[in-house]
C-alpha cells in the first residue's frame, strides 16, 4: 500500500470501466434480438468510444464523435427504427442466418487484425499532448486540406438539397386533396 497512488488507480479503473462498457454494449448491439434495444445500446458504445478518444488526449475528436454519432446518426437510426416499427405493426427482430460462413469470415477478419496488431504494426508511443488541437486543426483544414474540405462541404450541401427536395410535399398531390 506504500506505493499505492489513488490517482493512477482511478485513471486506470475509469479506463477499464469504459472498455467494459464498450464491449458489453457492442455485444448487446449484435446479440440482442429486439432491434430497438440494439439501437439504444449503440448509445453506450459510441459514448464509450468518445471516452477512449479522451484517453488518447484527442479532445476535439471525442466531442465530434458525440456530435456526429450520438447527436446525428444514432438519432436518425432511432427515428428510422421507431417509424418502421410503427408502420408495419410487427416487431422487428434480428436473427442468425448463415452461421457457418459468417463464423468463418469473422474468424478470418479477427485473425488478420490480431496478426497485424501483434506482429506487423510498428507501435510508436508519442509524447502526451498538452496543448490544444483545435487551432492546428483549423489551420490545417483551411490551408493544406482546403480542397478536400471544400469538396466535402459541397457534397454535404448537395445531400441537404436532395433531402429537402425529397421531404418536400408534392404540390400537385396536396392540391388534389
Amino acid at each position: 500500500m506504500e506505493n499505492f497512488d489513488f490517482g493512477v488507480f482511478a485513471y486506470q479503473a475509469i479506463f477499464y470501466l469504459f472498455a467494459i462498457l464498450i464491449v458489453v454494449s457492442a455485444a448487446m448491439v449484435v446479440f440482442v434480438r429486439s432491434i430497438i434495444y440494439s439501437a439504444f445500446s449503440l448509445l453506450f458504445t459510441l459514448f464509450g468510444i468518445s471516452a477512449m478518444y479522451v484517453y488518447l488526449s484527442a479532445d476535439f475528436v471525442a466531442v465530434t464523435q458525440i456530435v456526429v454519432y450520438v447527436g446525428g446518426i444514432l438519432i436518425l437510426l432511432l427515428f428510422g427504427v421507431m417509424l418502421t416499427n410503427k408502420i408495419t405493426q410487427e416487431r422487428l427482430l434480428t436473427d442468425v442466418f448463415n452461421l457457418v460462413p459468417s463464423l468463418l469470415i469473422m474468424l478470418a477478419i479477427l485473425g488478420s487484425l490480431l496478426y497485424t496488431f501483434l506482429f506487423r504494426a510498428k507501435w510508436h508511443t508519442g509524447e502526451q499532448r498538452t496543448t490544444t488541437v483545435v487551432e492546428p486543426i483549423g489551420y490545417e483544414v483551411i490551408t493544406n486540406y482546403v480542397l478536400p474540405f471544400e469538396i466535402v462541404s459541397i457534397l454535404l450541401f448537395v445531400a441537404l438539397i436532395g433531402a429537402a427536395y425529397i421531404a418536400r410535399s408534392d404540390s400537385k398531390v396536396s392540391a388534389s386533396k
Partner: protein
Amino acid sequence: MKPLALLVPDALTATAVPVQAENSWVKAFESLEVFGVPVGIFAIPAIPLVFIALYALYVGVYGERKVSAFMQDRIGPNETGKWGLLQTIADILKLIQKEDIVPIAADKPLFVLGPLIIFVGAFAAYAVLPFSSEFIGADLNVGVFYAVSIVSVEAVGILMCGWGSNNKWSLFGAVRSVAQVVSYEIPASIAILVGVMMAGSLSMQKIVMSQSGELGILHYAVFQSPVAWIAMIIYFIAALAECNRAPFDIPEAESELVSGYFTEYGGMKFAMIFLAEYASMFMTSVILSVLFLGGWNSPLPNIGGVALNDWTSGPVWGAFWIILKGFFFVIVMMWVRWTFPRFRVDQLMYLCWKVLTPIALLIFVFAAVWELYVR
C-alpha cells in the same frame, strides 16, 4: 494555499488588467485528500449537483409558481411556511413517498433508464460551466463545443422515455421533442459560433476572460459588435426550444398530448425529468451569459476613483455575478412561458428553418467580416 484564504475575495487587490482564471478552487479540491483518498475529486462534480437541486427547488419550482401567480394576478403558494417557502419541500417529500409505478405494457429497461439518461445529459454540461474565475469542473479546450454536443445525449434519453412508455402520446411527444431539439441546434450553434469567433477560443474561461476589463459592462461581447445582440436573441430563442419551454412546449402540449414524453411517469422518475429541464434551463442561461454577457465579470465600471469594477471582482463575486445572470435568464424564460401561447408544429419549423437559420448565417458572415477588418 490555505483553505480559508480561498473564501476571501481579493477585491481590493484586483487590478485593472484582465482577470486571469486560475481555477485555484478546483486545484485546491483536487489536492484535498482524506487518508490518501482524494475526496476532493468527488466534491467537484458534487457541488454543481447540490446547486442544481437547491436551484430547482427554489428558483425552479417555487420561482415558477410565484412568477406564474404574479403573471395571472394570483398569490401562489402561501400556506406552507412563510410565503409558502416550505411548499417545494413538501412536494419533494410527496414525490419521494410515491409508489414507483411502471406501467405493465411499458418496456421496463427503457422506461427506467430514460429519465436517468435525460438527467445525465443535462448534468454533464455542468462540467464546463465556469462558476467563477476559480471554479470550473473541467476547463476544456473545447468547452463550448462539448456543451453543445452533450445535449444530444438528452435527446436519446427523451426517445427512450417516449418509446419505453409504450403510449402513443409519449411517443408523439418524444418524436416532436427530438425533432425540435435537433432542428434548433443549428441556429443555436451558429449563434454560439458568433460568440466564439469574437472571443477567439472555445474554452469557457478564455471566452469570459476576453470580456473582462475595467469598464465592466462595456467590455461584454454583446457590445463589441453591431450584430452580437441578434446572435444573443437567436441563441435565447433556440435555447427555449431546446429546453422544450413554452412557447415551444409542443412536445408536452397538455391540450393535445396529455403531457408528452413523460405522460406515464410519476414519483421520483418524474422529478428527475423535471430536474433535468430546470438544469438545462440554467445551463443554457449560463452559456448565454458566458458568450455574450461577460460570464463572471462584474458589469459595474470603474469611474475615476470610484473603482466599482475592482470592488465587485474576485472569485466569490464572480460566482455571484454568474449565478445572478443565470437566474435572470431563467426568470425571463418563465416570463416568456406565461406570456406567449404555444406554437404549432409547422410554425415551429418555419421559425427555425426560414427565419432563425438564415438570419444566423447572415450574422455569422457579418460578424466574421467585422472581426477581421473593423475591430
